[in-house]
Each structure stands twice: as C-alpha cells, then as structure tokens.
C-alpha cells in the first residue's frame, strides 16, 4: 500500500518538474493535467471521495480544456 502511494507521489513530482522543463506549452499543460489526476487518486487514498470527484471533474478536465483554448489563441511555444 505504501509502495503504491510512494510510486504515485514520485510520478506526480516528476510530472510537475516536466511542466517546468518543457518548452512546448501544450506538453506542459498535459503534465499539469497528470499532476491533477494523480492528486485526485491521492485524495481517494486519504478517504475524501467528494474532493476526489471535484478535483477530477473541475481540476483535471475543465482547467485543461480552458488552458488548451487559451493556448490556441496565443502562441504555442514558450519563446
């Protein structure tokens, strides 16, 4: 059990570092979506199903969609 949680936290931190490093903005947004999804799973492990549902539907789906729409209307690369 603790092994699964450790692996999930490691993948979450790696995805956050990837969002820092990537130069393509679409890839950085997808890394942030992965962070939000793994946070939703961790909320379920911490016995909070309401918060897991809210984070999955609002944080992972709608925020990513809004980011992709905004990136489409501005530049796609960081420079």
């Amino acid at each position, binding site marked *: 059990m603790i092994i699964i949680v450790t692996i999930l936290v490691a993948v979450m931190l790696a995805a956050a570092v990837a969002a820092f490093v990537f130069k393509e903005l679409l890839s950085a947004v997808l890394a942030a979506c992965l962070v939000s999804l793994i946070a939703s799973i961790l909320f379920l492990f911490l016995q909070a199903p309401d918060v897991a549902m809210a984070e999955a539907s609002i944080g992972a789906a709608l*925020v990513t969609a809004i980011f992709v729409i905004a990136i489409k209307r*501005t*530049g796609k690369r960081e420079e």
Partner: protein
Amino acid sequence: MTFLHNYIYYIGALGLVLIGLLIVLAKHNLIKVIIGLSILDTGINLFIIAVGYIREGTAPIFSEPGLEPGRMVDPVPQALVLTSIVIGVAILALALGLAVKLHKEYGHLDLRKIKELRW
C-alpha cells in the same frame, strides 16, 4: 520506512508547492506562470486534506446503517478544500482571459518586455 509511512503525503504536497512557486518565479511566459499557479493550488489542497486524515479512518458518509462515527476522518478540511478548488478554477479562468487580451494588445506574452508586468 516509518518515516515514509508518516510523511509521504507531506513530502508530495510540499514538493508541489515548491515546484509551483519555482515556475511562478523563474519563467517569463505568462501561460507558464499560470500553469505554475495551478500546480501551486493543487499542492496546497493536497496538504490540507493530508492534515485532516486520521489513521485507519473511513470517509465521513453514513452510506450503510452499521458505520460507527468514532472512526471517521475529519469532514471540515474536505469542505474547505471543496470551496478552494472551485475558487481556483474561477481565478484561472479570469487570468487566462486577461492573458488572451494581453496577447491581442502586445503580440507576444513575454513578461520581460511588457512594461507594466516587469518586476
């Protein structure tokens, strides 16, 4: 191993807060800064829920008639984080709208060149 048992969620939340803050401070594209803001928000919410956890607890919902109320986790941090997630998405939406308008005005989103946002 017991150190990991006790503190793995705190390490994860603190790591997310640090990386989010690093993105906000070090990057100069406005969309990247807003992505960092979103990661920072997720880290803080994870920290609050991790504080409210009780060992061997269950979710605070009486879905079956036989659950005893002595072993449930704290419901107050969950209510606070529910509010915080919704406010986070409202702030992100408004920030992205302003970023789109800024791009229309200046043609780029480089914070080093936009005069009012330089620090």
